[in-house]
């Protein structure tokens, strides 16, 4: 496997032993970014300077990280990968940024992304294609493309992304890093540009499962500025992660191993399941019978919410405003046509259609009913098992350009991640080895019941151990 450079634990150890200072580490990453970003295009901006955070007790003090460019840092540009926000200056801080800053973490830069988080490949940014550090002819996955690539290429210790239908887990799988989507309502969305408000959630990209537990602990919790956050205490995720596998019931849904799954992904994921069994887990076959509908539900619900959320980009209050408009209506129609790329336009129009008079019942209402059935599938399964596992994405990273002319083919790479957002449950992708045919990373998807991130992390930790041991045996 790759040498991933500093983790939170190793950086902290180096700080405490005096062999490294936070400022030196910040400069180290600035140098790496300067060397590699021309090729990878993972960062969109790096105009942040070092701030002395002191030696406070926070585990994240002095740790350099990156934020997806749809999260606000007051006084700095946030584009969300769109031309329409090319010069937009954030008026205030997102809650996740405020929490990380108060914990002393050091921001390195904002990462490139599919426009308004719409895409599964990192090819939809107005600021150029993001490349996969494992093979620069391939996509890193998306939409949190730059956040995944930056961690995989060791251009930061960790990063944050947002996940609406797989936008953290799918690129984590394709870049061979850990990516966690928390339970809906676990992390504040204040200062995250809304894409689909009932699905969006912020989470970390990290090099180890332990780091994911640490970052989640730092960003989770109720927030008066986001009334969809739930009033639950934040547990000690590292302690919950450290449990063993004895008696843990691992559900394997047959629906996630059917048509479309590549042989090399299946082989690695099945190997991961056997490793959990050897560690003492009980493997249970479960059924999620409405899985086949998930992508269709998602491509109604998500564009519908998009069409409402992106109505605010109209050339009036901020962002691109057409200079060739004579009337108020022309300001709207021209600013939007000039400012949005093809994917946002596609989704805004699709959602507008699904919500329009005469079609609402057939599309939006029907989709939300099937969404209830998908959630019931998970509820029933979690009566019998602690986690549900499978592949994160049906294939390893694909070639740049391979799917860009066929939106539906692109959407299919999120087929296993989308049901999770519809249900609201937490899920994580952890690397489970390299595909035999391609030599590229494969992601192992672990889904937990509502607010059971600790159990998800515990299972992920065992996959991580198993992969490390088997790679030590073969090398």
């Amino acid at each position: 496997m790759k040498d991933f450079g500093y983790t939170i634990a190793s950086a902290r150890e180096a700080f405490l032993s005096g062999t490294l200072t936070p400022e030196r580490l910040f400069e180290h990453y600035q140098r790496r970014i300067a060397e590699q970003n021309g090729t990878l295009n993972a960062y969109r901006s790096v105009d942040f300077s070092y701030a002395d955070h002191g030696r406070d007790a926070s585990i994240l003090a002095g740790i350099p990280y990156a934020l997806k460019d749809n999260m606000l840092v007051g006084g700095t540009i946030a584009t969300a990968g769109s031309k329409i926000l090319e010069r937009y200056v954030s008026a205030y801080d997102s809650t996740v940024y405020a929490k990380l800053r108060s914990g002393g973490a050091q921001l390195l830069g904002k990462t490139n992304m599919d426009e308004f988080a719409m895409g599964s490949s990192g090819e939809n940014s107005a600021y150029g294609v993001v490349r996969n550090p494992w093979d620069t002819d391939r996509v890193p996955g998306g939409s949190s493309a730059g956040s995944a690539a930056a961690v995989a290429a060791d251009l930061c210790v960790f990063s944050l992304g947002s996940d609406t239908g797989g936008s953290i887990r799918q690129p984590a799988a394709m870049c061979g890093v850990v990516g966690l989507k928390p339970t809906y309502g676990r992390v504040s969305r204040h200062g995250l540009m809304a894409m689909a408000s009932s699905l969006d959630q912020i989470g970390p990209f990290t090099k180890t499962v332990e780091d994911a537990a640490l970052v989640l602990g730092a960003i989770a919790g109720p927030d008066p500025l986001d009334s969809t956050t739930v009033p639950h205490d934040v547990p000690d995720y590292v302690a919950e992660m450290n449990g063993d596998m004895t008696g843990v019931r691992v559900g394997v849904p047959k629906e996630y191993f059917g048509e479309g799954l590549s042989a090399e992904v299946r082989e690695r994921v099945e190997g991961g399941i056997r490793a959990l069994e050897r560690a003492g887990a009980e493997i249970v076959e479960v059924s999620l019978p409405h899985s086949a509908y998930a992508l269709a539900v998602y491509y109604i619900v998500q564009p519908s919410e998009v069409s409402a959320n992106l109505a605010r980009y109209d050339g009036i209050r901020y962002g691109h405003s057409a200079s060739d408009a004579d009337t108020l209506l022309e300001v709207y129609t021209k600013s939007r046509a000039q400012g949005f790329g093809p994917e946002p336009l596609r989704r805004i129009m699709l959602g507008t259609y699904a919500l329009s008079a005469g079609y609402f019942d057939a599309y939006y209402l029907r989709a939300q009913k099937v969404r209830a059935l998908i959630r019931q599938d998970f509820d029933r399964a979690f009566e019998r098992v602690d986690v549900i596992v499978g592949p994160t994405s049906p294939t390893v990273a694909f070639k740049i350009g391979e799917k860009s002319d066929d939106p539906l083919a692109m959407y299919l790479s999120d087929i296993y991640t989308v049901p999770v957002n519809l249900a609201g449950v937490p899920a994580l992708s952890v690397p489970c080895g390299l595909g035999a045919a391609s030599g590229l990373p494969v992601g192992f998807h672990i889904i937990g019941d509502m607010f059971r991130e600790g159990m998800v992390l515990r299972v992920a930790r065992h996959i991580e151990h198993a992969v490390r041991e088997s790679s030590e045996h073969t090398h």
Partner: protein
Amino acid sequence: MLTDAEVNHIAKLARIELTDALRERMKKDLSSVLEYVALLEKADTAGVEPLYQVTGLQNQTRPDERRADFPMDAALFERLVGQAPAHDGRLVKVKAVKRTT
């Protein structure tokens, strides 16, 4: 396949100016997605209540008072209103709703 008139109507509702090329592209792309989502007709949804949100939280309100956690001061006001392409003091300026003749 959606018709030109349907695509024009959607674009009008979405406040997006269409070129001929964009109309053709949208017609093709939207039609292929709509064809795919038609599979939802096969799901048995009799008696199923729609799931609009997943946490069950409802009517989350806050006291109707000046909030200390997000102070609206002159600087924030300037950062918000100051980004409008046209503004006049505390007001955002917009174009005429109707074309003047």
